[in-house]
């Protein structure tokens, strides 16, 4: 894919396995897209202070603390059911850590309107060969996998599509999320009934043929963005800039921000050992490459844990005798 030029080092978003029948392919998901949109920040034109949002109680107009906010669902006009965070969390689908393929359908069976977010899929833990086998088979048979996957507490329908050297997992919209178009004033599907003459179709086909080309995404750019960036550069060069000082975050916000971050750091640390990193990575990888090593991240680490626990209980016996002797 041509996108990888300026993208930062790929970050694993999800680890698990593609699974169907008895086949099990350990894989990681990487984001396939990056948002390049222009961000306009709001500033107070009098002071050049940043402008932000506040949550307010719509009745009193006063700001409301986060801990006083609960979540409700309006089940009929003005009538709400309140759900606790726990109740909501309990309703989340169970994470299975698998991309569970339910069927293989012809590659052109899914209309474009269903396509939502793409992820790159790459093999991990020596899954490369069976990964390649699946990719090759899909290419030859012209089929794609229809799969279910849970990513970050949400269940998705997805299509597993072979693309060049890799597999792309494209999340799909649910059927219920697609609006019917029966009420739109569409002409008849039958060309004759739509009033088209054979000569007209011929002419139109000729025109299309003349304009036919290979598609290269590099040929197309967001011109608005380029225009804005040129304008910004000109203004910077002309010294037309403003300094904006970000205020210190409020107590509550700051703590929460850091709270969220520590969860990220926790995951980072947990992952750090499974991936191996830095100077000593070579040693780590070589010990891990041993047969009977970890097949897929989580399960592997768990089993080490229990082995350690088992050892601990023997250690306990040893320790108690030692204590007796001391």
């Amino acid at each position, binding site marked *: 894919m041509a996108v990888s030029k300026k993208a930062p080092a790929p970050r694993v978003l999800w680890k698990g396995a593609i699974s169907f029948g008895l086949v099990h392919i350990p894989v990681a998901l990487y984001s396939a897209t990056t948002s390049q949109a222009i961000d306009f920040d709001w500033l107070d034109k009098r002071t050049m202070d940043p402008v932000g949002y506040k949550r307010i109680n719509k009745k009193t107009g006063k700001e409301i603390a986060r801990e006083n906010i609960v979540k409700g669902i309006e089940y009929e006009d003005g009538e709400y059911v309140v759900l606790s965070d726990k109740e909501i969390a309990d309703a989340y689908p169970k994470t299975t850590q698998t991309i569970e393929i339910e069927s293989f359908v012809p590659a052109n069976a899914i209309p474009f309107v269903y396509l939502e977010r793409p992820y790159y899929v790459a093999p991990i833990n020596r899954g490369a060969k069976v990964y390649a086998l699946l990719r090759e088979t899909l290419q030859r048979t012209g089929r794609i996998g229809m799969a279910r996957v849970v990513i970050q507490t949400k269940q998705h329908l997805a299509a597993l599509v072979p693309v060049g050297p890799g597999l792309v997992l494209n999340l799909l919209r649910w059927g219920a999320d697609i609006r019917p178009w029966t009420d739109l004033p569409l002409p008849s599907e039958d060309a004759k009934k739509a009033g088209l003459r054979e000569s007209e179709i011929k002419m139109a086909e000729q025109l299309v043929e003349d304009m036919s080309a290979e598609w290269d995404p590099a040929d197309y750019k967001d011109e608005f963005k380029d225009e804005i960036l040129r304008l910004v550069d000109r203004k910077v060069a002309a010294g037309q800039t403003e300094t904006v000082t970000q205020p210190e975050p409020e107590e509550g916000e700051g*703590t929460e921000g*850091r709270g969220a971050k*520590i969860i990220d*750091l*926790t995951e*980072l*640390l*947990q992952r*750090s*050992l499974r991936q*191996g*990193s*830095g100077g*000593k*990575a*070579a*040693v*780590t990888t070589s*010990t891990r490459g041993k047969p009977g090593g970890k097949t897929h991240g989580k399960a592997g*680490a768990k089993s*080490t*844990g229990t*082995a*350690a626990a088992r*050892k*601990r*209980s023997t*250690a*306990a016996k*040893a*320790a*108690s005798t030692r*204590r007796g002797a*001391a």
Partner: protein
Amino acid sequence: MNDRMSTDAPRITHPERVIDAASGITKGELAAYYQTVAPLILPHLKGRPVALVRAPEGVGGELFFQKHARHSDIAGIKLLDPALDPGHDPLLQIDTARALVGAAQFNTIELHTWNATSRAIGKPDRMTFDLDPGEGVDWQQIQEAALLVHVLLDELGLPAFVKTSGGKGLHVVVPLRRQFGWDEVRGFSRAIVEHLARTVPQRFVAKSGPRNRVGKIFPDYLRNGFGATTACAWSVRSRPGLGVSVPLAWEELPDLGSAAHWTVTNIGPRLAVGNAPWDAMEGSRTTLGAAMRMLGYMP
């Protein structure tokens, strides 16, 4: 305290002398504290070489850090075989309430212990990480740092126990089976800290020294060398307010307001909890081989 102990206890001279202006605690009250916590602190002191931090002029005055003594007036204190620490006077060891209170009589405020016992001084039976805030580091960062250290140790399959330092930081302790010598344990503790600093460079540094760590935390692995000591659980700290180092359950940590949450003044109710948060320590003593392999450390 039973009668025998209290009659046996050394006499405290000048018990009325205030040793900490901040709390108004007197020498007599400090000795009484050690007498009271003896059943809790002795399991941490017994069998280990100890270093005494003595403050003859009280908190704020000059401190003396004493690891060795040719002769000691402290009643009941044990002078160990000089061969344990060649080239020095004998190391000290406190095994009894009498020696503990005796140390208080000689103006001891803090007790620091080795990571090994005197019977097997060549093989440490624990690994300690001292999380002490440098400049620009607040308590919440220390709490989070300890939790992150715990995450990594857990991931390595290593048991970890935490206590307040009684000062500004936290101590994380990994109980070991006596398998490796000092060099290996210290080397591995260093590898752990380096991994932390490499993985979470925004929070940790692997180098000591204030210049290296403004706003960041250096989990001090240097406590794991031969002869290095760390303040013992239930030791009082010679700082204004006289904080006490207290064993914690990990679940308690997020709710704790500071590393000096407990002091000689307010320790009372906590004594009932005692060493319970560390009950699993003896039973969880671990070997290091698997963790060393995971981290790619060759002893």
